[in-house]
């Protein structure tokens, strides 16, 4: 059927299917700015268009319905590579992070400004009510709307600069445009799905309907005979090897316990079979024709069930050790049927007892410490399974080009993808190229090789281009989640609040496979325990297999759960002692010059060492929070029926993995004097490419537009460990610094020869001039002379960064809530985050990272939780029932302050900024709830039901 309408001011007449949505047709016609985040639920708003001037979801609109109408997409505003007032304002307000939702936000704000020239905060909130964003935390959208409105009235309006740092530097510490922001705001091709050729085949996976089952038989004959089917893979014809999907450095501290298609299915959503077909409909039809017979087993659906004597065994294959020996008493002999497990790293596991990993250590003598205490408390806390929910789900496009496998990936770890995929397929790494496209949100879920192994294998074996994209339901059931953790905290203290002993015993649920099974739970300890100074401290960590959704990395990497347990326990101890919770924190926290002894036993798999801190900003942060919240004053009155309370916590994270990680960069001087930066770093929307570009511009005396960044392409850019463990700015940023310093030195050396002056008399000055005492030469001329005729060689700087230095960002978060004792509802009224990220390289982007991190943690604290039926089937696999915060959940007073304490090794004094910001919300809110209504909520999220239970109302 034909539909004809005016699209972005031009009439189009397109043939469409009756059932085809406007979203599908627009994407088919190449308008890629309309994104699909919810598969037609209408819950994410990323597919928004303006229909007759109204913002509507194109996924809930048939293309035929718009016949004769006027439709606008973001492409309308990006003509001639310009930017609309709204797009410019969003960039100025640092609202463009991963950029997947940005086109929808552009349209929403344009619609708003059409009807309201000076929109109120409530109007902005309403305008954005249908658009989900997981990166930004929404707060900076208010500023964008205000800036855009001001420029509508006065096009020359200039927003006053935000806070600036390092006055001695030109770019660093000042706000500059995020280097990829304009393209993302225009909705240009940037993501994997935008790279797919029309001839691509479509890959679908048949998911296991059972949480724990053997595949007794599988019949693919009928499916294979169906039209358009290219290949079908099952456990019978996939590569026969086990690996881990964890995108960690090799040897990975995760068991190799996963086969491309397992012989035994271990969770609802596990891979039973996959169909590659020439169209999506043909793939669907073939998938439905596969006949499978299952032998259903009793599933393991909790940590308690996994630990129980006689529990069903999730992994019962032969166990072997590449490094080390089996722990005493552990079982290694398999059942002869299940897939094997190989350990590349000593994890102290006993998989046939469902123990995936364990570790225990400490300092001092905790029993002596408890004996010396005036007060001892022991409390148990639980954090449930939460989803990363990147709005761009897992997606990959793989094809064979020039005899090599080329994978367009949405990944945080291009080099780990290359290593793992090449080994799975059985080809050398030089046959594989990974191109990291813009990533529409990762948050840890894309640190794993979730889709690339299968797509790569099928592209390589069939020679056909393979497009594989999870739908939202798969993203919920077969992505990577934050581990469930049950943490028991025992504290001993003197009457004055001084700690005499701290003990944390942690059990984690790693789900069906062991990716990150040791490191995530360990991080819960290693990013919480070192915040307090105590001579006697001990921890025990055990990670168990279950038949629930796979766990893995998630922004914060376990730290939010450790922080919740320890910080809440400290507040409970304060209450027990009749002390103010902040006074108790002040008495025990780390401070400038502290020696952190517990780090001796927290060595990331290697021997650790105590660290003596330099300057620590926690005192100043707490002081600012106390003042803003009028801490010692009576609590503000709540509305009738509500009670008000407040809580505060201190938090920390790391900045990469000292002694383990490495990053590299290469900086080329081009013939016109501009720079091409080849960074291994994987920018997943965080602004890492902007950090590295700034380093190059700053050191080379150039403007930001003089630097172009290519990153995360394993053929073009040098090795980088990837974007995880808060390492981006610290490691990849420092690699760029070193590459720029190397290039600068080379330029000065060449210029010295050309100018005939000693190199020590030369300096590089803006914009791109090498100036001596006698003469000067531009970088452009220098580059031209170097690569032409008698020239030396192309001027190129190289940078490598690795370190043993540990850089800790710290923070203090303050929350104020209102609690309704009748309904159990908790409303977050105020949230202040005071954080030290060292020198903020780009302050507004740093704030955006914190806003976004906090709002994710707020979601985890109040709304988000994966739910399962009694058979282990996930119940809430869409945004309709898994509630991530919308703009309405943002607290009315949401305030971030940067309290920088420069690090001596970090780039320009910078440290990490993002992951730490998830560590505060849960304990701060739990403490505030107690302050309001006098009960402790020890399991998060603090849903109304849990609050009512704590209150004894139900």
């Amino acid at each position, binding site marked *: 059927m034909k539909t004809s309408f005016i699209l972005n001011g031009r009439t189009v007449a397109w043939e469409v299917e009756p059932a085809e949505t406007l979203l599908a047709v627009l994407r088919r016609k190449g308008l890629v700015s309309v994104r699909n985040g919810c598969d*037609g639920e209408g819950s994410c708003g990323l597919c928004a268009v303006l229909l007759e001037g109204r913002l509507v979801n194109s996924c*809930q609109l048939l293309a035929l319905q718009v016949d004769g109408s006027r439709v606008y997409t973001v492409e309308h505003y990006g003509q001639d590579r310009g930017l609309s007032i709204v797009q410019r304002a969003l960039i100025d307000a640092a609202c463009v992070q991963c950029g997947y939702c940005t086109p929808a936000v552009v349209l929403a704000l344009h619609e708003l400004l059409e009807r309201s020239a000076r929109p109120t905060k409530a109007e902005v909130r309403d305008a954005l009510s*249908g658009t989900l964003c997981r990166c930004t935390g929404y707060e900076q959208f208010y500023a964008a709307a205000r800036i855009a409105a001001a420029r509508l009235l006065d096009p020359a309006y200039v927003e006053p600069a935000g806070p600036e740092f390092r006055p001695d530097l030109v770019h660093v510490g000042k706000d500059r445009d995020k280097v990829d922001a304009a393209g993302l705001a225009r909705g240009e091709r940037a993501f994997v799905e935008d790279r797919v050729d029309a001839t691509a085949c479509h890959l679908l996976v048949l998911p296991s309907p059972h949480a724990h089952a053997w595949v007794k038989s599988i019949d693919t004959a009928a499916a294979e005979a169906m039209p358009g089917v290219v290949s079908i893979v099952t456990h019978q014809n996939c590569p026969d090897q086990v690996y881990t999907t964890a995108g960690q450095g090799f040897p990975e501290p995760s068991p190799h316990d996963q086969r491309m298609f397992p012989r035994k299915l271990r969770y609802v959503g596990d891979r039973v079979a996959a169909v590659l077909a020439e169209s999506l409909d043909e793939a669907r039809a073939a998938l439905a024709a596969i006949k499978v017979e299952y032998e259903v087993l009793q599933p393991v659906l909790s940590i308690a069930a996994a630990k129980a004597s006689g529990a069903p065994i999730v992994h019962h294959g032969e166990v072997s050790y590449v490094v080390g020996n089996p722990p005493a008493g552990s079982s290694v002999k398999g059942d002869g049927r299940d897939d094997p497990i190989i350990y590349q790293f000593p994890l102290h596991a006993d998989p046939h007892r469902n123990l995936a990993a364990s570790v225990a250590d400490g300092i001092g003598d905790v029993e002596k410490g408890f004996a010396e205490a005036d007060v001892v408390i022991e409390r148990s806390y639980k954090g449930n399974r939460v989803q990363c929910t990147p709005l761009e789900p897992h997606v990959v496009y793989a094809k064979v080009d020039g005899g090599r496998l080329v994978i367009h990936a949405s990944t945080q770890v291009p080099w780990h993808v290359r290593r793992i995929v090449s080994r799975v397929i059985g080809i050398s790494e030089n046959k594989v190229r990974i191109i990291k496209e813009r990533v529409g949100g990762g948050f840890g879920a894309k640190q794993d090789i979730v889709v690339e192994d299968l797509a790569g294998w099928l592209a390589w074996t069939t020679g056909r281009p393979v497009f594989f994209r999870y739908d939202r339901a798969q993203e919920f059931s077969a992505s990577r989640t934050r581990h469930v953790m049950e943490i028991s905290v025992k504290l001993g203290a003197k009457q004055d609040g001084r700690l005499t002993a701290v003990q944390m015993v942690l059990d984690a649920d790693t789900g069906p496979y062991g990716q990150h099974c040791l490191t995530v739970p360990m991080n819960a300890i290693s990013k919480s325990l070192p915040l307090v100074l105590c001579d006697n401290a001990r921890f025990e960590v055990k990670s168990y297999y279950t038949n629930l959704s796979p766990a893995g990395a998630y922004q914060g990497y376990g730290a939010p759960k450790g922080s919740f347990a320890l910080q809440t326990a400290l507040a409970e101890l304060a209450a027990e002692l009749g002390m103010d919770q902040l006074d108790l924190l002040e008495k025990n926290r780390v401070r400038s010059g502290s020696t952190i002894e517990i780090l001796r036993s927290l060595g990331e798999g290697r021997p650790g060492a105590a660290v003596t801190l330099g300057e620590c900003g926690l005192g100043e942060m707490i002081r600012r929070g106390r003042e803003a919240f009028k801490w010692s004053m009576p609590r503000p009155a709540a509305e009738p029926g509500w009670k008000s309370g407040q809580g505060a916590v201190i938090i920390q994270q790391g900045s990469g993995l000292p002694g383990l990680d490495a990053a590299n960069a290469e900086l080329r001087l081009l013939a016109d004097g501009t720079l091409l930066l080849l960074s291994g770093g994987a920018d997943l929307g965080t602004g890492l490419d902007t950090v590295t570009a700034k380093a190059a511009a700053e050191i080379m005396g150039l403007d930001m537009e003089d630097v172009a960044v290519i990153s995360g392409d394993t053929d073009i850019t040098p090795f980088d460990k990837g974007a995880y463990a808060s390492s981006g700015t610290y490691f990849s940023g420092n690699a760029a610094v070193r590459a720029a310093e190397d290039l600068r030195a080379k330029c000065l050396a060449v210029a010295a020869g050309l100018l005939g002056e000693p190199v020590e008399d030369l300096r590089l000055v803006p914009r791109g001039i090498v100036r001596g005492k006698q003469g000067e030469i531009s970088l452009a001329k220098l580059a031209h002379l170097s690569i032409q005729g008698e020239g030396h060689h192309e001027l190129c700087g190289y940078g490598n960064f690795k370190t043993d230095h540990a850089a800790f960002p710290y923070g203090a978060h303050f929350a104020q809530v209102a609690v309704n004792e*009748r*309904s159990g509802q908790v409303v977050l009224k105020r949230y202040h985050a005071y954080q030290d990220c060292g020198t903020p390289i780009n302050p507004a982007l740093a704030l955006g990272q914190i806003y976004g991190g906090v709002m994710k943690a707020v979601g985890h604290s109040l709304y988000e939780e994966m739910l399962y039926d009694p058979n282990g089937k996930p119940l809430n696999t869409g*945004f309709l*029932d898994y509630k991530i915060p*919308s703009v309405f*959940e943002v607290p009315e007073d949401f305030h971030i302050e940067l309290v920088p304490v420069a690090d001596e090794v970090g780039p320009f004094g910078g440290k990490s900024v993002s992951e730490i910001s998830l560590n505060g919300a849960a304990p701060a809110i739990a403490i505030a709830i107690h302050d309001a209504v006098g009960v402790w909520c020890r399991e998060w999220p603090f849903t109304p039901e849990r609050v009512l239970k704590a209150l004894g109302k139900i």
Partner: protein
Amino acid sequence: MVKEYVRPKDAAEAVALMEQALAKRAATSGGAATIGGAATIGGAATIGGAATIGGAATIGGAATIGGAATIGGAAWLAGGTALLSTASPSVAGNRTAADFPELLIDVGRILPRGLNQTAAGLVIGAGTTFQEVLESPLAFSALQASARSMANRNIRNRATVGGNLAFNKSCASLVPLCLALDAAVECAGGGPANQTLPLAKWLIKPAGLLLNLILPAGGGRSAAFARSSRTACDVSTATVAAVATVKGRRLLELCLVVGGFSLHALRRLDIEALFDGRDLDDLAATEAAIRPLLSAIDDQRGSSAFKRQQGAALVADCLQALLSAEVLP
């Protein structure tokens, strides 16, 4: 799955198209083919307005609309926010594309649209979007609150009044208030002329294409609406609408409708009996009196005990709000 899409020029043609679709289906299935009887025609013909498959109203709400479609169903379509979302995997559940209606009759541009104050009351066209209701100066406070409870602005810009009534889900935004106000609906089809009948009756046995919703004049009564949800833009987990003549703390001729505790929002005569003609007690006592009358199931949105407590608090809040609510025009 959808095989055909048609856009009739008026309501009469829309009805005729639906009758043809039903007759065609009846000829192949041997069933009845009259447009008036939802129960006999599988629901598809009873779609009220726009955004939804009206058959859902008689066969159990959204979760069962596939049932209507699998028998070769046709559906009226206007906004599409509910109907088209049923194709989404997370909404569809175990239904497949084969369960979706084969024929969509787009009535989006022929349904009456807008709000008009008439002698019969406030007339709202079935094709009026929720955002248009919200923006209308004729919308009184409780009506605005009901309209605002619909998801978010993107959805409100498309979702229609008729669709919300026809789908009649447990969480339907408008149904509680409309029932509490004893609203009527005007429909085309099922007879030679348009017919007007009480909404309550139409919801039990939807007939024809819903054209207008008629909210009778207030007559000195007040109205209040309250809802609970997990997040602000979430579907409602419970809804309450209350209408009464308020004298001091006394509620007279109380009419109370509660959604979220049954397949559809229902008038609760049992709760009304507790408070009608009496002075309203404090919140705690009100809530305690209501709680035993609510029943709920355990599901992913909460335990029965939780839902009853939260629902009782919500009903109590709504009754309390009624004391100071706007007197209806």
